[in-house]
């Protein structure tokens, strides 16, 4: 077909865009994935039994704040990277700053712990189940987000996948925080960050493989 004929054909039909934009699509997918993750957490792990009293403590909210910042920034990044021609450097800076702030708090806390007890302070009681729990709970979010992103047009699939993965990891960490009873900054700085980094890395790997469009 000649290019002019193609143009004439494309320009013949209705042009106005239809369907929801990228932000509603991705937010809807995130909400659906988050709901599944929350139900799975309550069913398989259970809410922490002292939730009402824990909610009085600042550390409880800090443990939620880190995932929430990651969720907000990576939702913004995902919706930008799901469309051609936009970058998401700002969101990356926000996530890096949040992680650095938590690391700084952890370093401050560790500096007053005797040298022999530092490793115990980092490992806490549930390091392994924390990382595994966050990574597992991120799966429904990851699936929903990548499916939604396939309907859009990411031109940098590695970054778009990483943003979707970070969003999945942040959501999963927020849900897991309602189960987990660890209340120390060094624990949060290590295992929550690792738990969120795993889905982000998985998303970066999956992006170029799954996010193809024409």
């Amino acid at each position, binding site marked *: *077909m000649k*290019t*002019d004929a*193609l*143009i*004439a054909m*494309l*320009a*013949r039909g*209705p*042009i*106005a*865009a*239809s*369907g929801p*934009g*990228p932000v509603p699509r991705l937010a809807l997918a995130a909400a659906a994935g988050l709901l599944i993750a929350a139900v799975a957490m309550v069913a398989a792990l259970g809410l922490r039994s002292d939730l009402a009293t824990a909610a009085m403590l600042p550390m409880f909210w800090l443990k939620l704040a880190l995932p929430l910042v990651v969720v907000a920034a990576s939702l913004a990044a995902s919706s930008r990277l*799901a*469309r*051609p*021609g*936009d970058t998401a450097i700002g969101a990356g800076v926000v996530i890096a700053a949040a992680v650095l702030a938590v690391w700084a708090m952890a370093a401050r806390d560790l500096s007053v712990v005797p040298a022999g007890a530092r490793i115990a302070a980092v490992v806490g009681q549930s390091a392994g189940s924390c990382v595994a729990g966050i990574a597992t709970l991120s799966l429904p979010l990851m699936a929903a987000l990548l499916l939604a992103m396939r309907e*859009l*047009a990411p*031109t940098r699939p590695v970054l778009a996948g990483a943003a979707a993965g970070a969003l999945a990891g942040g959501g999963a960490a927020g849900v897991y925080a309602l189960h987990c009873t660890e209340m120390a900054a060094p624990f949060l700085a290590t295992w929550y960050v690792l738990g969120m980094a795993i889905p982000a890395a998985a998303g970066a790997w999956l992006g170029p493989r799954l996010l193809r*469009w*024409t």
Partner: protein
Amino acid sequence: MTPLPNYRADLNDVEDELKAAMLAALAGDNRAYAEFLRRCSLHLRAYFRRRLSAFPDDVEDLVQDTLLALHNQRQTWRPTQRLTPWLYAIARYKLIDLLRSRSPRRAVEVVLDEESADAALIDQDALAQEARRDLLKLLALLPERHRLPIVLVKIEGRSVAEAAQQTGMSESAVKIGIHRGMKSLAAHAAARA
């Protein structure tokens, strides 16, 4: 003498024009949309030709492929966003797709080149704009009988016959106008340099 049609428009920023056409198109103007796609096809052809010197036969297919992608993905462009980065992001995606199927190594090279070339691309745009502005200034110094033939024939690419018809000048007057005009343009440019 007729005024110059489209001349001003040609000198406007590509971004503004494409954006205006796209906005009109999204508001339901099918002719603006056809014009938008036609303009995009010119930019895309130039973009792919430069980068597909090894596969010249693929250029037109890729232009069509990308036009189709622009069309399918038109809802991913937001009016608050610049249009040319959107257009070239899609073009680059399509180019890498094609190169990956032809030769994986070239695709990697394009990705790396493009990452560093984004800044250079902007510089070239700016330089081209400046050059156009300079040309405008120099052209303004010429008398009408020299300026019109140069604009119509050398810039807009019309034939001498068309230019003659449009301006009401004879063909030989157009030719002489171009010849003398180019000479004095060169003299002005040399004086400024």
